[in-house]
């Protein structure tokens, strides 16, 4: 059973003057539901681009991307946006929190696009912050939180919409080793507990080891 499937996916970007750069070259990948997958590779191997395609942030140049058996190339822009919001939660290397909003408001932010009432949004955001252990910091702004706390707010934000898949792009890349380990524990535990599929980009084999499966990327292709 496959939740996400990539078939011969390529991604090329134009460099101008008829020059193109191939980032992904014929990638095939199956992601079963409820599992954790680590995309491991050096810088420039195409990990983040692959993650962007998986999260519907980008489209492949060629090839097919299926979500739950549905070919995404046939889905229009509006539905694709809704799917992006409902299916996926994102955790980024540099947290990408909105500095002018409190932790609570940052966690609520994805729910503002889901047609939920204010009370429901607040309750769910509080619940998510409690899950990551930051229930008492909900009124704090990102600038008043440590790096590890900011990433935990980002995890709460990614999970608050109850996504089917959580995509994390080097979530510990901006953190020290101990804080990174704590954040990863939070990430693994919560995704396992909620049955969320995890796809994780990292270049750290230790972090990748904790996943159910490791996919090595090398110069735009799946190495093993």
């Amino acid at each position, binding site marked *: 059973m496959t939740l996400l499937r990539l078939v011969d996916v390529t991604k090329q970007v134009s460099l101008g003057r008829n020059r193109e750069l191939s980032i992904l070259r014929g990638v095939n990948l199956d992601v079963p539901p409820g599992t954790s997958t680590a995309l491991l590779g050096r810088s420039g191997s195409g990990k983040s681009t692959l*993650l962007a395609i998986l999260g519907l*942030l*980008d489209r492949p140049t060629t090839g097919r991307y299926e979500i739950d058996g549905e070919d995404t190339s046939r889905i229009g822009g509006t539905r694709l946006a809704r799917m*992006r919001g*409902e299916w996926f939660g994102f955790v980024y290397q540099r947290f*990408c929190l*909105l500095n002018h909003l409190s932790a609570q408001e940052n966690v609520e932010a994805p729910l503002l*696009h*889901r*047609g939920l009432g204010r009370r429901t949004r607040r309750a769910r955001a509080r619940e998510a912050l409690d899950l990551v252990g930051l229930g008492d910091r909900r009124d704090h702004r990102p600038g008043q939180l440590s790096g590890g706390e900011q990433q935990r707010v980002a995890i709460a934000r990614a999970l608050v919409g109850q996504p089917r898949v959580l995509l994390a792009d080097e979530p510990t890349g901006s953190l020290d080793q101990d804080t990174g380990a704590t954040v990863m524990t939070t990430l693994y535990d919560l995704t396992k507990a909620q049955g969320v599929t995890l796809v994780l980009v990292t270049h750290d084999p230790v972090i990748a080891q904790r996943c159910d499966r490791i996919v090595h990327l090398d110069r735009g292709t799946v190495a093993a």
Partner: protein
Amino acid sequence: MMRRFGESLAIAWQGVRRRPLRNLLTAFSLLVGVLAVMLIQGGGGAVRDAIVRDSVLQSGSATTLQVSLTPQPDRLANLTEWKGLLSRATADQQGRTAGMLVADGVTVQVGGVIATDLSVRLTDPDLRELRPFPLVRGSWLTGDPTVAPVAVANTVAWERLPWSAGDAALVIGTSRQPVRLRLAGVVYDGGDLPTIYVDLAGSGRWAAVLHDQAIASVYVHSPTLGESALTQRVRTVMTVSGRADEVGGVQRVDRLDQYADQLATTQRVFLAIAALSLLVGSVGILNIGLATLRERSDELSLRRSFGATSPEVARIMILESQIVAVAAAVVAMVIAAVVLPAALRAAGPEYPLGPPTLPVTAMVTGLLVSCGAALAGALAPAIRAARVPIASIMRV
């Protein structure tokens, strides 16, 4: 649909809160333009009202005809008779008539001062039905028979001549035949010349003094009939009564039509100035919108990753500008509501018909143009914002 709009509004409000100083400056640039529009429209309206009001006071509202009577031995009796006859012409149209003897060139003494340029107009109280003179002090003519004829001065005559308090003494004619009048009140008649209106009812004894110097007219007004229809009716009345030979002429005297072009030109000039001010505000928003787009691209990509569609992102950008526009318009309304009446009091007509206030139309126009200018300025940044690549969030 409404919930989606509410969500966009909430996000837009967060965006406005994020950059308070920048939005304050944007609002200020809009505020200047909107304030100009409100003041121009409100002030322009007041000027227009003043012009129309003065025109109505001086020559009557549309349609008013002056029926001039040819010289007759007993002009006063003829005037009353003609007024009665001509009132039939508009009896079924809520029309009004008023008789008047204009006695220019009569020597008048007020408090010992000879006022050679004072215009003396013998009339009946109905004149104020045709020309609604605002009463500045005292009372208007009553038409009641009195021993001493009653007069009402216009504000120019009141200010220029040394009227004494209470019953002022006025002497008309030669020193051998002085006629004392009682000053009953003062009105604003929109004119620049010193004038007194004397009640016909008490003027019988001294009207003969005027001899052939006076010009007798009856003013006929109909709020519903046009010039040609009213003229036709007046001529029919003359003919039927068999006294057509006593009429010197019939002419339209209200001048609102003549002012129409002048008012339209004035309004166009005012609008052009307001449009220029708004253009500046709009370009300011465009400039700030485009300048901030780059620094906002991360936030916009993040919103897209949450599931926002391109039109929603554009809507958020536009709503942000609209929040600023509404805030600017509200502040402009408050300022205009204080400034305009003060300016009108300082530079406006001396005897306004009512207290100067900011018209509701000016407020509504201000709000609309503020939102319109903000929309025009926000459109290009909003379209660009909708095109921000979502995947760029991965490279932050």
